[in-house]
């Protein structure tokens, strides 16, 4: 079924669960639809008025359909309880500790992705909405010493492979949506909210970031964002090459 669905390449740990759920659901859909369709087409042929001049007042007298409906509801309930809800809970509740993860802040803007790393000291400078301005996308506190070495990048977001990534998603202007199909992550970037997501990339590569929410006339062109997954060494080298400071790229 996975081949049949032609899903995009997968490069995250939890993504397999998403793909499995998609497969189960499409099996259920195909079985139900084909079953219904066979019954439907047979009925149309069998009870064509040319073949069946006199209709039967009562029609079907058994309640097989009720059992079928209960079965379908049972399958849906099982998928919900044992697959979908645990999968979701793992996404939004079971966050790894920040010490063991790559932590970054992502802020969308029309029409690009900003990302912020803690820098060499591993500590983010304070953030407050009061400091948000056109030159300070994240609202970094200019007085906070911890923020001096923080790294900000535009569109090229690097993370190391096989280590959980925790990303705090927000936006500075309108609603965007941070979507990386290969990681099976999507999260609306809503101004005024900072929503954490996490995922564990399992393959190195350069992955397309999509904006999945209409964000204005440049929405279709907001395609310059890439999630670069690389070896820990290459990642560290990249991070060190960046000059710390809260700068903007507008």
């Amino acid at each position: 079924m996975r081949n049949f669905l032609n899903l995009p390449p997968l490069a995250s740990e939890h993504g397999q669960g998403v793909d499995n759920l998609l497969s189960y659901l499409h099996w259920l859909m195909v079985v139900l639809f084909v079953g219904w369709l066979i019954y439907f087409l047979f009925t149309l042929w069998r009870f064509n008025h040319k073949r069946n001049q006199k209709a039967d007042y009562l029609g079907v007298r058994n309640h097989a359909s009720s059992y079928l409906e209960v079965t379908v509801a049972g399958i849906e309930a099982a998928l919900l309880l044992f697959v979908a809800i645990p999968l979701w809970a793992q996404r939004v509740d079971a966050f790894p500790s920040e010490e063991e993860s790559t932590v970054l802040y992502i802020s969308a803007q029309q029409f690009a992705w900003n990302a912020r790393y803690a820098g060499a000291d591993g500590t983010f400078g304070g953030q407050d909405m009061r400091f948000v301005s056109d030159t300070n996308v994240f609202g970094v506190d200019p007085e906070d010493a911890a923020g001096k070495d923080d790294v900000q990048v535009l569109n090229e977001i690097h993370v190391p492979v096989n280590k959980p990534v925790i990303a705090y998603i927000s936006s500075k202007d309108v609603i965007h949506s941070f979507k990386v199909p290969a990681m099976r992550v999507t999260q609306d970037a809503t101004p005024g909210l900072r929503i954490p997501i996490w995922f564990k990339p399992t393959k190195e590569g350069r992955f397309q970031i999509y904006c999945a929410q209409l964000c204005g006339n440049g929405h279709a062109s907001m395609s310059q964002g890439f999630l670069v997954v690389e070896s820990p060494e290459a990642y560290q080298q990249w991070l060190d090459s960046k000059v710390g400071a809260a700068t903007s790229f507008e």
Partner: protein
Amino acid sequence: MQAETQSAPHHTAHQAHPDDLGFWRTYVFSIDHKVIGVQYAITALTFLLFGFFLMLMMRWQIARPGEPIPIVGSLLAAVLGDVAANGVMSPDLYNSFGAMHGTIMVFLAIVPLAVGAFGNYLVPIQIGANDMAFPKLNMMSYQLYFLGGVIMLTSFFIPGGAAQAGWTSYSPLATSIPTDGQTFWLIGMVFLITSSLLGSVNIITTIIQLRAPGLTWMRLPFHVWAQFTASFLLLLAFPPLETAGILQLMDKLAGTSFFLPTGLAIGGKLADVSGGGSPLLWQHLFWFLAHPEVYVLILPAMGIIAEVIACNTRKPLWGYRSLVYSALMIGFISFLVWAHHMYLTGMGTKIATFFQTTTMIISIPSVIILTCLLISLWGGSIRFNTPMLFALAFLPMFGIGGLTGLPLGFSASDIHLHDTYYVIGHFHYVVAPGTIFALFAGIYFWFPKITGRHMSEYWGRVHFWGSLLFMNLIFMPMFIQGMAGMLRRMSDGAVQYSELRVEGVTGTLSSTIIGLNQFILWAAAGLLLAQIPFIINFFWSIRHGQKVASDNPWEATTLEWQTPTPPPHGNFLRPPQVYRGPYEYSVPGYPKDFVPQDQPPG
């Protein structure tokens, strides 16, 4: 029998009517529910065609981004100016057309056709009433709808054009676009919502108060039940959106911040708003209407399908009570599922579990209704006329629409499919080959009652097979595109995300996936061609169609067929008395295979 006897007096009644009131009060400012129903039908069908044209132009832009639109391109450039310079659709214009396609299809075409036209015309006659409970309110409802439509259309021609933030109009985008399109949209919506509220109050009161003697609740045609439930949804779900619309209008015009948070920096400078509002609040208020609205679209459609199927299988509907209870259950639960449109806004496990559970629960009554209709076919003597073809096609088409809702209803699988073309395919299967097919079935079915003439059966079949084929060719590829990750609302058909643009990137779209846009464009052109027989057939048949041989050409049982054709002002020549349920077809022991609801026993 009864049918022929009624035809004679009706002519005098029909001819006397215009003489009494004059042209304006008969056709324009009419308070007759049938005239208002026809007004709704004509206006809504016009909007349906217009909404389709918007999408045709968008499909051209999606398939061939940056190329001038053929035929209408120069006209657009002349009328709309810079946004369509050289006949090329700019992203601004694309976003306008996208927002207005959705708005027009939902609020100006399909709901007015399903509830305004079919509800208005059929409900009073099917329950044996002379008219609506509040005829003047009914007239006002149509007029507000018309004005709302005029406001929406006008917004295309103001500087900057129509609204650009999608039919969902999410803040802050909706209020941050510096043109007046959104203002027009919001004012137009206030008119349309008010119109819907007046209409729904009227239908509810009429059904409760004006049923003919003997027409108990369980003898109501299923269509009446469906309209009853749909009207309750409109009545209860629309006020929050009307309120929200006015709040967003204040954000836009008066500098309030109901939906605008602190710290907005739009277009390179800090936005001049006080902040403290919540963009999520708008989404909640919007979807609290917009999900029940889906059932406002689908319930009357199911009602129409039930009538057409019962009549053309010549047997009672299977599980009438299950149908009724399922419709009511859908009505209740539809108020509890709205946030399944918002899984990816940052929803915790508890809330996501609640909305996933309600979403799965609401699928049960939908499945029951579909199953009852499918089982109703068994044992029938099925007549394959045009209305029946559309009604039958509704079943598998709505089936596809419903089933593809499953992976969207689970939050975990929605991660991958949210806002992709899979969603577009899903809800278009529900609304286009689903609801619109039901509406076509209804038009072909009741046309002889409304006009006294049949539409051409041959051209009806051409219309049906063309529509069925092209609808599927348009919407089926969208599932493939969506599964591959192609997103909706891309003004260039997602070429920026093509694998050809940059090498070595994973998760881009293959040329095959993007190439399907070409295929869909030509399928959409084919769908346009397939509608031409319908449009000609419709207008030609009003004057030249084959005349009906009796008042009850389909030999149906419900009350609307027991009136003169077309029904005169006041509908019935004498107050009907109802003796039995709505679908007494092929009753053993009766000489004919149908027993009208008002035929005395014995």
